[in-house]
């Protein structure tokens, strides 16, 4: 990997009049990286993609593509290719003409165009469709034509705007693997916009979580999962969502403890956090459920058991309206109404301050 990032965003912002859609975006995308822009609808991820592509104008900041300042370059001069959510195939051109179009526009000789088109088509298993029109193709085939049109340019980076969201569930999973395989083979920088955290988690090298036009966290899937930067990230990533308990940190005789729906000694955690309001978080699969016995501090009653094949999802009531989500092995014998002992292992806990921002652990 070269030292120059493939795409760099510095203090990028976009606003329409008084409404700010993006602000303070700083991002550095390495060459060959698969980066996912993840967030709920309206968070600005598609706008960010369009800014990189040059289809929208920046309000502030700078974008560098391949080391060159791209702010004032035409989209076609930026050496990026885009796959749109609705594919945007030219309805009046055949598949062959669609895929070959960008090459034709760049002035390549007819034979060269033909050759590249056929390479791309066979690569994407579209050989038989070359002389058909988009409206004769299935959704999955159209998507591959859109990919072909992007691939054939051999651009610096691929920009993908929720390309799988128009496909049915089965096809989506299939195409997901195809895209990852494609990325491994071609090795080009890819920026992938999605609202589906499963897609982002399974496909990306790094994920950028966005909310209301601001980057919430940038990290690998593992980092984003196990060390979320704030409560938004914590609840957006992972299914079922992380358990969050609101309460306070209090110092007392026996050391500091978390006081909320239950009491939990902190044992040296949260040293950087002052006393005061805080939120405690733990992922469902880290919650330990066992038969009730008196030695445990935390007990609850099982309210719901969802058996989903290899796992079972438990919802246990602690009383006072607080419930805990837990994931256990399907083999565990448990049924609704059982009294259970709940253990929240210290190593799996996440602490968030009053604003919901994660507290870094010292040592």
């Amino acid at each position, binding site marked *: 990997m070269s030292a120059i990032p493939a795409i760099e965003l510095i203090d990028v912002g976009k606003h329409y009049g008084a409404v700010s859609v993006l602000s303070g975006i700083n991002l550095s995308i390495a060459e060959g990286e698969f980066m996912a822009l993840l967030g709920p609808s309206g968070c600005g991820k598609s706008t960010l993609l*369009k800014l990189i*592509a*040059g*289809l929208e*104008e920046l309000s502030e900041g700078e974008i560098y593509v391949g080391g060159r300042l791209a702010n004032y370059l*035409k*989209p*076609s001069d930026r050496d*990026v*290719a*885009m796959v*749109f*959510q*609705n594919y*945007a*195939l*030219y*309805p*009046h051109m055949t598949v062959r003409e669609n895929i070959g*179009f*960008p090459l034709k*526009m*760049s002035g390549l000789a007819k034979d060269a165009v033909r050759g590249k088109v056929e390479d791309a088509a066979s690569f994407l298993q579209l050989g038989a469709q070359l002389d058909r029109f988009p409206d004769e193709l299935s959704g999955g085939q159209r998507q591959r034509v859109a990919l072909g*049109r992007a691939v054939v340019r051999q651009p610096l980076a691929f920009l993908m705007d929720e390309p799988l969201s128009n496909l049915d569930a089965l096809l989506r999973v299939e195409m997901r693997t195809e895209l990852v395989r494609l990325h491994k083979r071609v090795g080009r920088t890819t920026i992938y916009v999605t609202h589906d955290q499963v897609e982002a988690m399974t496909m990306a090298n790094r994920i950028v979580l966005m909310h209301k036009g601001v980057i919430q966290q940038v990290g690998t899937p593992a980092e984003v999962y196990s060390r979320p930067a704030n409560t938004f990230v914590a609840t957006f990533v992972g299914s079922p969502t992380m358990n969050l308990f609101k309460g306070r940190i209090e110092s007392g005789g026996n050391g500091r403890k978390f006081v909320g729906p239950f009491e939990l000694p902190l044992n040296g955690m949260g040293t950087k956090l002052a006393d005061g309001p805080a939120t405690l978080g733990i992922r469902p699969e880290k919650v330990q459920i066992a038969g009730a016995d008196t030695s445990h501090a935390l007990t609850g009653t099982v309210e719901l058991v969802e058996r989903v094949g290899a796992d079972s999802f438990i919802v246990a009531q602690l009383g006072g309206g607080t419930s805990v989500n837990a994931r256990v092995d399907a083999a565990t014998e448990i049924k609704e109404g059982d009294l259970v002992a709940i253990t929240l292992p210290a190593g799996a806990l996440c602490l968030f301050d009053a604003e919901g921002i994660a507290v870094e652990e010292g040592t």
Partner: protein
Amino acid sequence: MAVETAARLPPAIAADHARARRARRRRNELLRHLALAAITFVLVAPFYYVFLASLKNATEIFSYPPKLLPFPPYLGNYEKLLFHTGFLRWMFNTLFVAGSVTTLKIFLDSMAGYALAKVDMTGKKVVFMAMLILLMVPIGALIVPLWSLMSSIGLIDTYAALILPPLANPLGAILMRQFILGLPKDLDNAARLDGLSEFGIYWRIVLPLIKPGLVVLAVIIFTDQFMSFIWPLIATTSDDLQVLTVGVAALRAHGGANYGLWSASAVMSLIPVGVFFFVLQRQFLARSLAGALKQ
């Protein structure tokens, strides 16, 4: 199928019901045909009546009871019309002007519609609003300033005077904008990324895809121009620039009551549009749908 419920009718009665329904349907259809036949007869009969008159000489026209079939046909009216009046010239003028306006507007309006739909420019909203508001202001209400304007440029009594003012009608631009907005999303963005200039996008992507809309537009404009009267009336004075509508009106106004001539002129005037309409029926009827598009 073995489930018997109280609601199930025995097959014989069910068949009766079905037969009654079919008969009722047939009867309703027959009534509809009768109603429509009557209505269309009333609407179309005048044309036939005038067609008959055009093939009668002066005495036959006034005779009662009137001849109901055009045999033997008297061709003197048509002869007079075609060879002793400027009718053919008028027809040419109308077709020329209507054709020019239509061709020009196809490009002007589609380009304007493209800008309004797909190009990010300041003042777009204002321009569009202005067009919507002034859409229904007719040329007939503007004859004073228009005539004065044309006169001061010295264009009165030229083809330019006939062709230019109709170009101002914003209906075309509004329609084109609507059609272009209806194109698949991001098509222009994909084209921009592929390297097309704005004009390239307009020419190679948008125009081919809105062809049906262009045909509808052409039909609307051509028909409007064919029928326009008051502006050509005042914009042209010399004989060889008269358009069809004005020339035919002049037949009525001058030269006494030559009914035969008048009826022949009516019939001949209808031939081009009649043929046009017959060939392009669907596009003509889409003209009414264009209004429904606004909903």
